[in-house]
């Protein structure tokens, strides 16, 4: 399956782009996408516990299953205001 990844702030800089596409085995979960991305940018590893993941406007846990053609957003800790 392929999944589109939206990255923001520090994570966007580490991945080098605001959007990317990753290819994963069928049945992959959010944590598998994260592992694939840390393969591309090992420095992401230390942001793992502080990063929230959203899909279709809702925060999802790391064991959430992904869907082919779907999209996830990687959200570092907030810094607004």
């Amino acid at each position, binding site marked *: 399956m392929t999944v589109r990844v939206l990255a923001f702030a*520090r994570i*966007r800089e580490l991945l080098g782009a605001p959007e990317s596409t990753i290819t994963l085995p069928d049945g992959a979960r959010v944590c598998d996408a994260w592992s694939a991305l840390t393969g591309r940018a090992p420095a992401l590893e230390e942001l793992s516990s502080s990063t929230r993941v959203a899909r279709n*406007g809702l925060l999802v846990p790391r064991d959430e299953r992904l869907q082919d053609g779907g999209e996830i*957003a990687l959200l*570092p800790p*907030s*810094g*607004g*205001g």
Partner: protein
Amino acid sequence: MFAIARGAIDVVAVEDAVRAPECGAVVTFVGAVRAQSDDGLPVVGLDYESHEPLAVQTFEEIAREARERWGDLRVAVVHRAGVLDVGDVAVVVAVAAPHRAEAFSACAFAIDEVKRRAPIWKKERYRDGPAERWRENP
């Protein structure tokens, strides 16, 4: 009115969006870019980035939670994105309520929640050398 603004925020327009005949109190919080970082570095400006649809949705959720807690309120939240200088308005939260106690409490709640959970990020730029940094809310 719940929005991410690419240009300067019109504070009066945000207030006007919540005014209503049944509301005798309007409390507005205006957040501006401060010239010093929390750890004392001289800030010249900020770059704000957001996940816009999720940020707007988060503003709406916060307003709904405020109404559950303090009753009938009218709430508006507008946050800037892009490049800001010191003194620029970064965020405006306006709350109108029949009486001031609810308006003050709900406005404080709303800005605290915006800072805590809205998907918005800021990078500070400094005068005289220090490399720019992403800054997270405590």
